[in-house]
């Protein structure tokens, strides 16, 4: 449906921004994501999966990216990586794709409305959380290549 098309557009353009397509002319890179279970923060999970898959494929990337979802609860507190229940109760959900170079914003999509300050706070929290996710990528890749 339209929602899937919209998600595909977000993912595709995020990947296009980091993959060095110039090094692979006349090549199609096909990224297939199959949702096995959705317990909240689906879009950022897809982004993380996409990046790790691109890493695993050995494609040349300009930077890594990770997805972080922030939920703004009714009382104003910011919750990272919300569950489905927390997403429903939140008054705004912001999903960012953060790049590994200087923690810049690659992709942003929001649900619900929030003030400008709240958005900046969520972005700052997401950028801090990105460090943890990139560390996870590093550990995973290290584990994978230490066996062989």
């Amino acid at each position, binding site marked *: 449906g339209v929602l899937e098309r919209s998600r595909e*557009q977000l993912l595709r353009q995020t990947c296009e921004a980091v993959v060095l397509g110039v090094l692979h002319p006349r090549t199609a890179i096909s990224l297939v994501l199959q949702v096995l279970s959705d317990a909240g923060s689906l879009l950022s999970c897809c982004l993380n999966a996409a990046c790790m898959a691109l890493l695993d494929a050995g494609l040349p990337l300009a930077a890594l990216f990770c997805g972080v979802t922030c939920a703004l609860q009714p009382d104003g507190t910011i919750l990272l990586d919300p569950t489905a229940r927390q997403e429903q109760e939140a008054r705004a959900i912001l999903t960012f794709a953060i790049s590994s170079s200087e923690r810049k*914003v690659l992709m942003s999509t*929001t649900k619900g409305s929030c003030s400008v300050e709240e958005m900046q706070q969520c972005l700052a929290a997401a950028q801090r959380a990105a460090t943890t996710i990139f560390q996870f990528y590093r550990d995973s890749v290290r584990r994978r290549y230490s066996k062989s």
Partner: protein
Amino acid sequence: FFFLSRTVEPLEYYRRFLKENCRPDGRELGEFRTTTYLFSSGSITTADGSALVKLGNTTVICGVKAELAAPAVDSANKGYIVPNIELPSLCAERFRSGPPGEEAQAASQFIADVIENSQMIVKEDLCIANGKLAWVLYCDIICLDYDGNLLDASVFALLAALKNVQLPLVTINEETGLSEVNLKQKNPLTIRKHPVATSFAIFDDTLLIVDPTAEEEDLATGTVTIVTDEEGRLCSVHKPGGSPLTGAKLQDCITRAITRHKEVKKLIDKVIKSITPK
């Protein structure tokens, strides 16, 4: 002496202008195209509300049709708003006839999200009788001429068309249980918020230009669309991939979007005032 051609090397051609802080059509980097809109309560006489918006050459028409339906079981007190954006092959060469392409579908989803996020129309207001009858607003947005910045024009056309909608009074007859539509008594819709979209194109990973034309969109390395409402709240920060931006650049876009909102609101108010003696 080497002459740069717009068709042979479009990017270099554009860069020459951007270096001087302007664009080939004479605008500055932060300048919008002339926004005009017509919403004589008969852009489309068969629709319940309609508006035609032109942003430079980009022309978008929105028609709203109201129908009656039974509300969904899990939300018995809510009506429906169904937006749909069509990019027919007449608006630009790149669109072929057939099922809607990805751009049209993504744009439709964006509009649905803007309506939901901004709460411009509260679905509970569309309910007539709890569990039995509610309004369905079909909002069809058709692009007649595509010259970039579709999202801004569509949001504006939608807002203008909804402001134009007159819904007849519907009552449910106690004895027969059937609905009675009183076409003589019409009321406008309650529009709670007025969201306005502002789009930017990112050039060469650093420059932000406002209100891109189709040519600029093709040469750009990314786009950002910010939707704000009259209270300065963000209804949407839509950046579908593209060049990465720092938080500061994003904040710059938001500030400009808030300024743009004030201009557009003035435009809407001016036109409404001119047609109010109805």
